[in-house]
């Protein structure tokens, strides 16, 4: 047994190392959690495969041009919002946020690590969904840059919403609420089911949802013929996502409780 030298030697590790190690812990926990994987990996993938082949909804052909951008939006929502809200809600209940916030990692480092883990999961999701999309006949078109920008903006908006929920409600309420919102947004946002069954006035309201703006925006960015970065994406999608991102971040900063 090595002798323990308990002599005080206080000091924080470099900030980059603290955040990287925390992000890696968060990522391992996400990948180890069955419910999280169901939400972030299994549901978007199964939905894509089933909806491409099953005549369940009146989707314009080729169906994959509608579905791949839709499930990419769902993937962002599942990781940044639902998964993050549930995990963070329980971490708040178990005092993890408080203890890490009081450690040399600090609150800013904690949020940075969580964000890095969310982005890492999104990279895995996009790689998987694009591969499955190509396998079922989808061909990428348009502007990858505009699509990436939309994903980042959507991640900011959904992360802030997820943290707002986790930082204000009880863990059980967050668990139920985040799943319910996920399901509702999946159905009404034009992610895998077109909004054509809704009346025009309801539809214009639904377009203001962040999930609808992200799905519409990605569909336009990745549509054939949209070669100029971002030009095909409707201005409304950018504005809606930006407003959600700013408003939800402000609300989370204002109301989030660490313990």
């Amino acid at each position, binding site marked *: *047994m*090595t*002798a*323990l*030298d*308990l*002599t*005080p*030697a*206080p*000091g*924080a*590790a470099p900030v980059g*190392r*603290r955040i990287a*190690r*925390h992000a890696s*812990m968060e990522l*391992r*926990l996400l990948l*180890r*959690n069955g419910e999280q994987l169901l939400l972030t990996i299994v549901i978007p993938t199964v939905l894509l495969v089933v909806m491409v082949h099953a005549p369940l909804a009146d989707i314009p052909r080729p169906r994959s041009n509608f579905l791949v951008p839709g499930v990419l939006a769902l993937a962002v929502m599942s990781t940044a919002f639902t998964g993050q809200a549930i995990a963070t809600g*329980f*971490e708040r*209940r*178990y*005092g*993890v946020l*408080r*203890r*890490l916030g*009081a*450690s*040399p*990692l*600090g609150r800013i480092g904690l949020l940075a690590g969580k964000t890095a883990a969310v982005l890492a999961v999104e990279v895995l999701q996009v790689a998987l969904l694009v591969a499955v999309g190509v396998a079922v006949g989808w061909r990428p078109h348009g502007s990858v840059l505009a699509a990436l920008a939309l994903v980042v903006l959507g991640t900011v908006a959904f992360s802030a919403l997820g943290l707002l929920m986790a930082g204000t409600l009880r863990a059980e309420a967050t668990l139920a609420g985040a799943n319910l919102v996920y399901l509702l947004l999946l159905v009404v946002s034009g992610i895998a089911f077109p909004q054509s069954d809704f009346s025009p006035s309801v539809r214009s309201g639904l377009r203001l949802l962040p999930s609808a703006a992200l799905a519409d925006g990605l569909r336009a960015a990745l549509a054939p013929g949209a070669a100029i970065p971002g030009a095909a994406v409707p201005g409304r999608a950018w504005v809606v996502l930006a407003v959600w991102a700013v408003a939800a971040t402000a609300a989370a900063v204002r109301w989030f409780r660490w*313990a």
Partner: protein
Amino acid sequence: MTAVEVRDLRRAYGSVRAVDGLSFTAPTAKVTAVLGRNGAGKTTTVEICAGLRPRDGGEVAVLGQDPWHNAALKPSIGVMPQAAGSGAAGVYPAARVGEVLRLFASFAAHPLDVDALLDRLDLARLAGTAWRRLSGGEQQRLSLALAVVGRPALVFLDEPTAGLDVAARHATWSLIEDLRTAGVSVVLTTHAMDEAEKLADHVVVVAAGRVVAAGSPAELTRDDGGTVRFTAVPGLPVAELAGRLAASVRETKPGQYVVTGAAAQAALTAVTAWCAERGVLPEHLSTGRRTLEDVFVELTA
């Protein structure tokens, strides 16, 4: 320099004043025990000092600095939050023992050797086990390890031995003694008198959000006349005996009596005579010094 200096600290939760004008100091490189019943304000006090909670009023200097939102202070202090009852020890339930200790070690510039620390606290064989699968005592030991792994100058341990078996308790005590020897200041809360008596250089007795006594265990248990203790039927009119002896007589638990402040010989004679008058047989009649428990019961009754 003192490790912790608290003056007139106040903290209320709604209308409940958990800490109400509390003042104490904790010396450097010594063990300070904050002793009190449940709800006395120990945890609130320690959490404010550790930077986990804001205060309503009063002054707090931890290693000379205000602990609230103080990033510069964080590497110098280690915290073990209370686990019993709250379930909020602050560890990811699915994280494994080794990886969570390595995570906290990675936040520090000069951390302890993780494997040696796991060995020392008998956690090495559990390195691959998730936190939620640990027993209460194992969770307590890991939580202690997390508090010290960054080699802090000052550690706050909130009920570090609550729920531990005898062996784990002694392992924890031995680590705390080694921390002190190495020059680390330790502030711990407890309601175990033997723990305070054995470990602490300095004891702070807290009741109803205030400090009712402070000093070394020897100072607190010093008394002039010695102590007489006996057991008899509960509910004897102790005030009468106290008046006769001009001393303090208390029923500390039903049927257990302690006489303090009278010469031992006189107290023994008076107790036996008084009991005989009432037709009561005093059992376990003994004399001796006061214990910390006697002092505590007197102060917080």
